[in-house]
């Protein structure tokens, strides 16, 4: 290899060869920069694309699928929801506050680029153990960054998930989800109509921040990457709000032909991708781009990831009105180029041409890899532990305390109270519930959002674990009576050049594809984040899912907790495979020979929502909640969390495996609280839908008492104080975060 084959933008040598043979010459600096961005994993999906074809985005409600800024699904007779999730892992590790804030800003732009007004945000956060000071700082600043953007722009952050696990210490995950509402006839597209169009730049001025960010996110970190800060962007939610309002106004007046946000690879990807979708070319004059720093080179302007910018393709007579709207909103706007009929990406600076590359070379001819995959050989762990199934080995009370005392099992209120989760006043169920519920204010409908990103089942079994995540979402939605209408995902994995990682990825994608097809849930948008690897160590496979469900009548909704004593408690749902593999308990104990990951009973799962719909329509429930992280005991504690002293008295039959009964997280089970007089109706409904159903106890003040018989018929009793359990629950995360100076 000669010195000049080495890319200035870290393009691998074999891809440089490919560029040279496509062009028939060496690319110049600007062209090489353009290739480095568009051929990056982040923009080209070159390692994942062939596998993502397994997902089905079809469905009667789907209005827009993959290929747009976000997917859109119809939820009322005239309105659709646009939603998407994206990762901002790499930037958040380098500069947690700005990294997280720009992650929120970026996902919001994807939503309003569709013409949808954002009405809800959620997030999934995965960090290393909080015992490390570095993680405390990262975590604190990421939460503050998300809060800073969402609170300021006025979109409520309504829920999310958090998980602390040492294996993510050097590759934290920050995934943000946004949902917006759009009238069916007001949906904007990123695919331009076949007309002569001008390229209009709208938003913040361009600076050097975030130059080459997409390429950074497409590499592993090494210890040498001590200062990558210039590659991180800076958020400005105030400008973000002005750009959002201006964009929505422009779309409402039908002034734009196509819109894309300038996200990863900024001006380059937005212009090239829109031109490519129309089979046309585009010419950009970097002299026309509003700049913050006039010393910027053309390639820097092209690759800058300065925030709060949109690119619009507009018919000439409408340009002036757009410029007026921008000036009223006090944001910059300029005509920076035009669509051309030759499929060429041409970059000019005044009269000088700096780059001229056929558009298909940048998109269709981008590399596509079917990378080798090799299933992981699970190394036998040291046999210091004993199997959890050994009778009497573990005290159930003690295990429950361990689950609650860890931040993974405690209340996430320390996080959610920093988020304005109510602005917009559409929040029907707020943080602390399994799902966020957004009021549509139309036809009494509402939308529920369930997040699932718990990676432990995938560590145990990537395929089955991925299916479990889908089933968990569907159970969460069913618990509030919502029917799943669409799913988006963010697939966070390690280095795809490692066959083990690739194998995890392929298995997980197949699992999600299989599960969503069984349940008829379209996968309408998504994002892949590879290279979550530092010094050769990859994160566990971590697909994070967000599933949206439709509630036909918001007035029937019940919360996930109650303050009332004397209510009956019952369990409804599938219960034949309660294996502990991949559960939170399994993670805490880390047994050498864990249970298998439970198999999902798809038949029963699919009947769960219709059953819940009938029960909710009968107005018989006071509270309902899916059995989730930590299993039955933790879910019981959460359902009585409406009051500080409320507890439970349970009377259970003979249990063959008490650990499974109390700690299994097998999806498809819902905990119900209701007035005893409604027991007959609910039980009868369960019978009609073929849903296993069992009344297990009542809610009582000041008491936490659970009686059962063990395998040998001996009476057992678990006693605790509900007040103390609740104190543990609320202190485990907040305690760690507030002890700091």
């Amino acid at each position, binding site marked *: 290899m000669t010195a000049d084959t080495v890319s200035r933008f870290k393009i691998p040598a074999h891809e440089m060869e490919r560029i040279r043979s496509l062009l028939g010459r060496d690319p110049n600096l600007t062209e090489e920069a353009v290739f480095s961005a568009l051929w990056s994993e982040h923009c080209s999906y070159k390692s994942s694309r062939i596998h993502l074809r397994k997902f089905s985005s079809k469905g009667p409600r789907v209005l827009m699928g993959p290929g747009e800024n976000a997917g859109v699904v119809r939820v009322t007779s005239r309105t659709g929801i646009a939603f998407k999730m994206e990762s901002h892992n790499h930037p958040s590790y380098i500069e947690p506050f700005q990294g997280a804030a720009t992650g929120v800003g970026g996902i919001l732009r994807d939503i309003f680029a569709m013409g949808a007004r954002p009405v809800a945000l959620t997030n999934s956060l995965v960090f290393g153990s909080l015992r490390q000071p570095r993680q405390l700082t990262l975590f604190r600043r990421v939460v503050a960054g998300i809060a800073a953007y969402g609170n300021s722009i006025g979109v409520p952050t309504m829920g999310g998930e958090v998980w602390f696990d040492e294996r993510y210490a050097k590759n934290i995950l920050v995934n943000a989800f946004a949902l917006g509402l759009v009238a069916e006839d007001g949906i904007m597209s990123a695919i331009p109509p076949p007309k002569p169009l001008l390229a209009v730049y709208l938003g913040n001025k361009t600076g050097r921040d975030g130059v080459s960010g997409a390429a950074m996110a497409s590499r592993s970190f090494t210890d040498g990457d001590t200062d990558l800060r210039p590659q991180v962007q800076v958020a400005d939610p105030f400008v973000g709000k002005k750009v959002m309002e201006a964009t929505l106004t422009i779309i409402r007046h039908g002034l734009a032909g196509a819109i894309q946000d300038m996200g990863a690879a900024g001006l380059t990807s937005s212009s090239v991708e829109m031109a490519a979708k129309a089979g046309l070319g585009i010419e950009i004059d970097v002299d026309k781009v509003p700049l913050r720093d006039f010393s910027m080179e053309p390639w820097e302007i092209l690759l800058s990831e300065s925030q709060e910018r949109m690119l619009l393709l507009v018919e000439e007579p409408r340009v002036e009105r757009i410029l007026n709207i921008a000036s009223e909103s006090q944001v910059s706007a300029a005509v920076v180029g035009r669509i051309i009929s030759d499929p060429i990406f041409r970059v000019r600076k005044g009269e000088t041409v700096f780059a001229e590359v056929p558009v298909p070379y940048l998109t269709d001819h981008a590399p596509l890899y079917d990378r080798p995959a090799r299933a992981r050989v699970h190394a036998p762990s040291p046999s210091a532990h004993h199997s959890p199934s050994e009778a009497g080995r573990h005290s159930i009370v003690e295990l429950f305390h361990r689950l609650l005392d860890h931040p993974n099992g405690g209340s996430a209120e320390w996080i959610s109270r920093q988020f304005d989760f109510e602005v917009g*006043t559409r929040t029907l169920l707020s943080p602390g519930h399994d799902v966020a519920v957004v009021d549509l204010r139309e036809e009494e409908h509402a939308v529920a959002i369930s997040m699932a990103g718990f990676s432990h089942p995938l560590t145990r079994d990537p395929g089955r674990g991925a299916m479990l995540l889908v089933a968990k979402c569907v159970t969460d939605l069913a618990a509030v009576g919502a029917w799943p209408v669409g799913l988006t995902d963010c697939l966070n994995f390690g280095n795809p050049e490692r066959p083990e990682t690739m194998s995890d990825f392929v298995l997980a994608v197949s699992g999600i594809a299989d599960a969503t097809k069984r349940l008829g849930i379209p996968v309408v948008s998504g994002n892949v984040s590879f290279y979550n690897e530092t010094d050769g160590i990859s994160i566990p496979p971590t697909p994070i899912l967000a599933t949206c469900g439709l509630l036909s009548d918001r007035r029937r909704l019940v919360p996930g907790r109650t303050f009332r004593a004397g209510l009956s408690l019952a369990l409804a749902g599938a219960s034949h495979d309660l294996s502990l593999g991949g559960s939170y308990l399994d993670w805490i104990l880390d047994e050498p020979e864990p249970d298998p990951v439970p198999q999902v009973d798809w038949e029963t799962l699919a009947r769960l929502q219709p059953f819940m719909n009938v029960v909710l329509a009968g107005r018989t429930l006071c509270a309902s909640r899916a059995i989730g992280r930590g299993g039955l005991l933790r879910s019981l504690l959460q359902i009585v969390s409406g009051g500080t002293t409320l507890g439970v008295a349970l009377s259970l039959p003979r249990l063959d495996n008490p650990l499974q009964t109390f700690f299994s997280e097998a999806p498809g089970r819902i905990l119900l609280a209701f007035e005893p007089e409604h027991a007959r109706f609910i039980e009868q409904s369960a019978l009609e839908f073929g849903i296993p159903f069992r009344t297990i106890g009542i809610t009582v003040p000041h008491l936490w008492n659970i009686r059962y018989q063990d395998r040998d018929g001996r009476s057992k009793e678990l006693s605790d104080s509900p007040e103390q359990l609740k104190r543990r629950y609320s202190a485990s995360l907040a305690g760690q975060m507030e002890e700091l100076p």
Partner: protein
Amino acid sequence: MTPRHHVGIIRFPGTNCDLDTWEAISLVPGLVPVWVSHKEKSAGDLAAIILPGGFSYGDYFRTGAIAARSPVMDLVGDFAQKGHPVLGICNGFQILAEAGILPGTLLPNSKRTFLCQEESLVIENCRTPFTTLFDPGTPVTLPIAHQEGRFFIDPDRLQDIEKKGQVLLRYLSNPNGSLREIAGLTNVTGNVVGLMPHPERRASSLFGRPDGLLFFQSLALYLERQSLRTLSEAH
């Protein structure tokens, strides 16, 4: 026919509780919400003005500092001076304090983070246009959502506002380190009110009590009485 009172809702570029406030006003018979731009210079036929919550100009600088110096605030100052009802909610309160229309200032929360949570509060002053429907000592539950809500004022003036009964609302358990648990305040003449909690977020509710609606219903009643008084004076 019931008279319809126009309630101006001021919009700065970063205001984000404007629509929520609009919805809350719309729920009250007799009140009609009207948008007022931050560039507006005339109060027209407005009967009351509300400054809703948000991040008026991004609030990267001290909260409300830029908004307090924007053109519309001259209008608000005059309007308040004439004794008309003015309500500032959250960022609106911060702006009124920054503009000197209400006493004191709102500093960053003692825990230094944003706080979004429900608070139990007690109403103390029921003589303002926004609290006439309450009895003194009424407990209410309203949400707060702010990063700078710690009420602060020098000791002399604190004594003064306490003595004159200007404290409108107090927290039961102080979330942000405010002096004397102060969550809401009125001016000496009682026509300008600042609230850190958000009444517009509890104007209707699926599960909880709609305690916030009473603030706007109070306003409707007050304006109704005002117009009756004007009418009888005319006769």
